């Protein structure tokens, strides 16, 4: 049975996790994601799951480490300053190859910044964040519906690759109320066997969950294996959407909530006779470099729009590799790029 419910993005995200069979949540309050932790507290008590309000973000992410090590589907959520605190744990989780889901409803930074929406944690999310050579799968939903759907997907991806998956939203997406359609029959989580999990060593050799490899070349071997895994993820899990790309002379690139405004701007441009289109990365790592590279060439101009001073634009430039001009428009520290501002930039590029 399909139901349409009006809910905010934070609640939709929590419901996506519950549909995915998440049974463990640990978190710490921070604006603008407080509806998420509150909704998790309510839902976990309904499904007999485990909810812990941790003493810190450090404790929360390490509780997720423990729950994942014990074989449970586990999640934590926070916003930018809190996610910075979690980076140590995320590095350990990536090193120990534990599956889990982390949510970041981004707010303004650096430091305590403000509580307005922002996309200034892109580098932290896709380039590592914590120490060491590791990658986190990063998904960037652009609506409440997608927050539910991609959080649901995140748990399957995490289990499939034994890797942390980050849902990168922003305060706008988290707070905005939108209708969400939930058809319970269509959400069937793919539960996998976890023979590596800590369950007590009855009838088998002891399992060790570790990210520490002291022996000669042991860590190099481990890291090589991780890199092979990342290559597989890159080949199989790159996600992006495009709109009116074929005949476009001006190609906007934007993700998350900004992608919705950018799409509207391209439609406005089309109405004025400007051939504009949009590439919207859904997975920020792996990044849809090929789609961007294929679209680049003579007579094409790119306009990257972000709620940051210019972070994703670096990945776009790498993909474009000099084949096209790449322009950037960003608002940051609480500013949100408007359709009119994007339109003005598009017209200046023509």
């Amino acid at each position, binding site marked *: 049975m399909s139901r349409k419910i009006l809910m905010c993005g934070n609640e939709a995200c929590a419901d996506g996790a519950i549909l995915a069979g998440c*049974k*463990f949540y*640990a978190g710490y309050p921070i604006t603008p994601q407080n509806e998420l932790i509150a909704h998790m507290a309510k839902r976990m008590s309904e499904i007999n799951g*485990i909810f*812990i309000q*941790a*003493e*810190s973000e*450090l*404790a*929360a992410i*390490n*509780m*997720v*480490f*423990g*729950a994942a*090590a*014990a*074989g*449970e589907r*586990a999640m934590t959520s926070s916003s930018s300053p809190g996610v910075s605190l979690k980076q*140590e*744990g995320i590095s*350990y989780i990536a090193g*120990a190859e534990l599956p889990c889901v982390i949510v970041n409803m981004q707010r303004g930074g650096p430091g305590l910044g403000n509580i307005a929406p922002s996309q200034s944690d892109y580098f932290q999310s896709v380039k590592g964040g914590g120490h060491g050579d590791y990658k986190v799968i990063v998904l960037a939903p652009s609506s409440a519906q997608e927050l539910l759907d991609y959080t649901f997907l995140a748990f399957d991806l995490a289990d499939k690759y034994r890797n942390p998956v980050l849902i990168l939203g922003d305060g706008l997406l988290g707070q905005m109320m939108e209708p969400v359609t939930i058809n319970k029959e269509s959400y069937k989580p793919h539960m996998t066997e976890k023979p590596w999990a*800590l*369950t*007590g*060593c*009855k*009838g088998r050799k*002891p*399992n*060790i*969950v*570790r*990210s*520490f490899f*002291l022996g000669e070349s042991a860590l190099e071997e481990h890291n090589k294996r991780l890199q092979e895994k990342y290559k597989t993820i890159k080949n199989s899990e790159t996600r992006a959407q495009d709109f009116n790309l074929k005949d476009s002379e001006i190609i906007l690139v934007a993700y998350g909530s900004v992608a919705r405004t950018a799409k509207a701007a391209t439609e406005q441009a089309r109405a004025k006779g400007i051939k504009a289109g949009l590439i919207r990365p859904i997975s920020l790592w792996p990044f849809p470099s090929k789609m961007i590279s294929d679209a680049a060439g003579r007579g094409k101009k790119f306009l990257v729009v972000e709620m940051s001073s210019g972070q994703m634009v670096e990945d776009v430039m790498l993909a474009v590799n000099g084949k096209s001009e790449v322009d950037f428009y960003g608002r940051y520290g609480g500013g949100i790029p408007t359709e009119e501002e994007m339109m003005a930039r598009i017209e200046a590029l023509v």
Partner: protein
Amino acid sequence: MRDVDMHYCGGCGHSIVHRLICEVIDEFNIRERVIGIAPVGCAVIAYDYWDFDVSEAAHGRTPAVATAIKRVRPDNIVFTYQGDGDLAAIGTAEIIHAANRGENITVIFVNNGVYGMTGGQMAPTTLAGQKTSTTPGGRSLRNDGYPLKILEMLAVLPGVRYLERVSVHSAQETFRAKRAISKAFRTQIENKGFSMVEVLSMCPTYWGISPVQAAERIKNDVSLFYPIGVVKAY
């Protein structure tokens, strides 16, 4: 316990504490139910010696990891093994809150008053006046504060059920230490709540004395500040 050589220095207490834990586990016949959490510090590769499921944890986050494992698997027996840097410095918040939530886990806290793995720096439990590589003139109370008595701090928390301080500096004290570790595991097995044993342990290498002198130092010096005995029982 695996039949392998250990990496610990001569006269170090870790190997004794490892053995006591394994003996207790065998006496309760719970090896296949146990999940241990190894710390960051000298005992980081304890899983090379223990013959049951083990997880690592980031430095000091050990009780947070144990909390989640026990909540997910309440039928397993979950214990953390932590040194004084791990538990009483970088992980102070985690141990206090795990204890305060009354998590049904067991904590084995090895207090030797120095950071061993990194080369003998001051620990939160280092005694006043004690020389370490970061207190070359001896621990100054004015500059470094007072040695932390963790058990006495935790004793006031209602969620905490069993606390005992023991030592492994002599055969007699080692026997008492085993009894305390057994009591702590029993506390968990009987679902009574949070239990912790602090073990005063020798680090001759970074105390700069012989193993025999190190054992005497616990008897004549360390245990005067950190009194051996039950701090809280049910």
